């Protein structure tokens, strides 16, 4: 190889690996700042205690872990069926021209900054929930609704891609057997695309659990585990963003510890999604 070629290759290699470097830097710093406290008070008391008063020596983040999962699940309850039906329509029913309009619209939905979702939530959704359903309006329900809409594009586009990658002969075979369009979708297309659809759900959940700005604005950020759909709650991300500005000393480390836990959860989500997708490719 010419020398110039080698230089160029190494330049590109360097840039490619820089993303890895950034990931490790972030990992390193979060662990570096967060783990001393984790060692000091123990993983158990961080994960299982309910009291969070970091300036008074209590670092229990259980309510936030539970709340994070609750809103993620809530978002999935709204986002999953909507996203899946949207993907089915786009992939199986929509004509070329309809798809040309709908797909970019969905992508635009993904491009709206989260603070805008939060703002809409505070201005419109919160008063409606307060007025007609009760409670302060800042609640599990409101947060789930906002997040459900936010993860819609993720779920739709990944499910759509999965259904598009189901080979045409599968459907043709089904039609040849006399199956209707719906029978074909229900019995052939959806089962074949299952792993891709599940991966879409999991990545959507990853997005929901990591969302911060919109959540802070509509969740109410109370420290207890919500006992009902209409009660306020605080997520892991919300906890970090809300308190970081003022935090010093152990309080600060406690927020990094929150970050460590959050990172672990998101890594698990992503690995599961990767695993599910890989299984499909191998098959």
């Amino acid at each position, binding site marked *: 190889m010419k020398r110039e070629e080698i230089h160029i290759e190494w330049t590109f290699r360097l840039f490619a690996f820089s993303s890895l470097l950034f990931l490790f830097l972030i990992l390193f710093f979060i662990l570096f700042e967060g783990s001393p406290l984790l060692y000091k008070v123990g993983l158990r008391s961080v994960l299982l205690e*309910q*009291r*969070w*008063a*970091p*300036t008074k020596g209590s670092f229990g983040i259980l*309510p936030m872990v539970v709340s994070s999962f609750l809103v993620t699940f809530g978002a999935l309850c709204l986002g999953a069926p909507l996203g899946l039906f949207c993907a089915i329509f786009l992939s199986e029913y929509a004509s070329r021209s309809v798809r040309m309009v709908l797909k970019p619209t969905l992508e635009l939905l993904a491009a709206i900054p989260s603070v805008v979702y939060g703002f809409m939530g505070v201005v419109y959704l*919160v*008063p409606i929930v*307060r007025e007609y359903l*009760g*409670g*302060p*309006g*800042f609640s599990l329900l409101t947060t789930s609704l906002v997040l459900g809409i936010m993860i819609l594009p993720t779920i739709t586009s990944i499910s759509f891609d999965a259904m598009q990658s189901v080979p045409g002969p599968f459907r043709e075979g089904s039609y040849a057997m006399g199956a209707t369009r719906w029978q074909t979708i229900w019995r052939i297309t959806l089962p074949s695309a299952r792993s891709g659809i599940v991966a879409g759900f999991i990545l959507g959940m990853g997005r929901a659990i990591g969302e911060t700005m919109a959540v*802070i604005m509509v969740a*109410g*950020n*109370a*420290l*207890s585990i919500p006992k009902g759909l209409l*009660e*306020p709650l*605080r997520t892991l991300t919300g906890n970090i963003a*809300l*308190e970081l*500005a*003022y*935090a*010093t000393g152990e*309080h600060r480390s406690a927020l990094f510890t929150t970050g460590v836990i959050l990172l672990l959860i998101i890594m698990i989500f992503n690995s599961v999604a990767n695993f599910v997708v890989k299984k499909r490719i191998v098959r």
Partner: protein
Amino acid sequence: MKRLLLVFLLILLVFLLYGLRRGSKEGFCHLTLIGSTSVQPFAERLAEEFMAENKGYLLDVQGGGSTAGIQAVRQDTAHIGMSSRELKGEERTLKSYLICYDALAVIVHPANPIENLSIREIREIYAGRKRSWREFGWKDRAIDVITREEGSGTRSSFEDLVMKGEEIAPTVMVQDSNGSVREIVANDPYAIGYISFGLVDRRVKAVSIDGVRPTEENIKRKVYRFVRPFLFITKGAPKACEQNFISFVLSERGQGILKREGLIPVL
């Protein structure tokens, strides 16, 4: 290729030199103020007036909270820190200037008929023992209680003045600025919150505490007791630039501005 690099380096050099010259220009002051979101809006007003009157000053006012401001001064990332609480512990090694007093106001929605609450009642609401407005003779509707986040100067003053060692219940909602507390109370008829008195406007109602209305006069006569200091913090003796601004704030003119904004001057 080489020529391109040379040109790039030259441009860089010019920028660097320009920056150095500008930074060292005689009599040019660039001050950074960081700290309490309660002090911030007033510091911005003061900075505006000060910059309009004095050429060669550039003041940059940022929020972040009392603790963050004090920390920033210690680490030399800010020239002046703004605090809405007294210094405590190690922080006492820093130099502090009392610029004015501010009162805390407990606010409710204007549609709320309640005019007066005792300190005890407020404590019971925040400790989660009184949960319904019916206990205060209004509708049977849960109280939407709002507090500030852990570490906030306003919250720590509130805890000192009201909670008396008791803890704020975990079911209480948390917001991270005076502005968002006011915004929620202004929109939710059943909410209660506390903010800086200087920031109370017509969209919310400040209730009397133990029968004392939070008016400027009552605050000045020290009848109204929910009062806290606003401090400017420097590390060691202030340099000429910083001293000039602090003197301006403490002058009749600066205090007059603070007074017009609803705060209680120290003069």
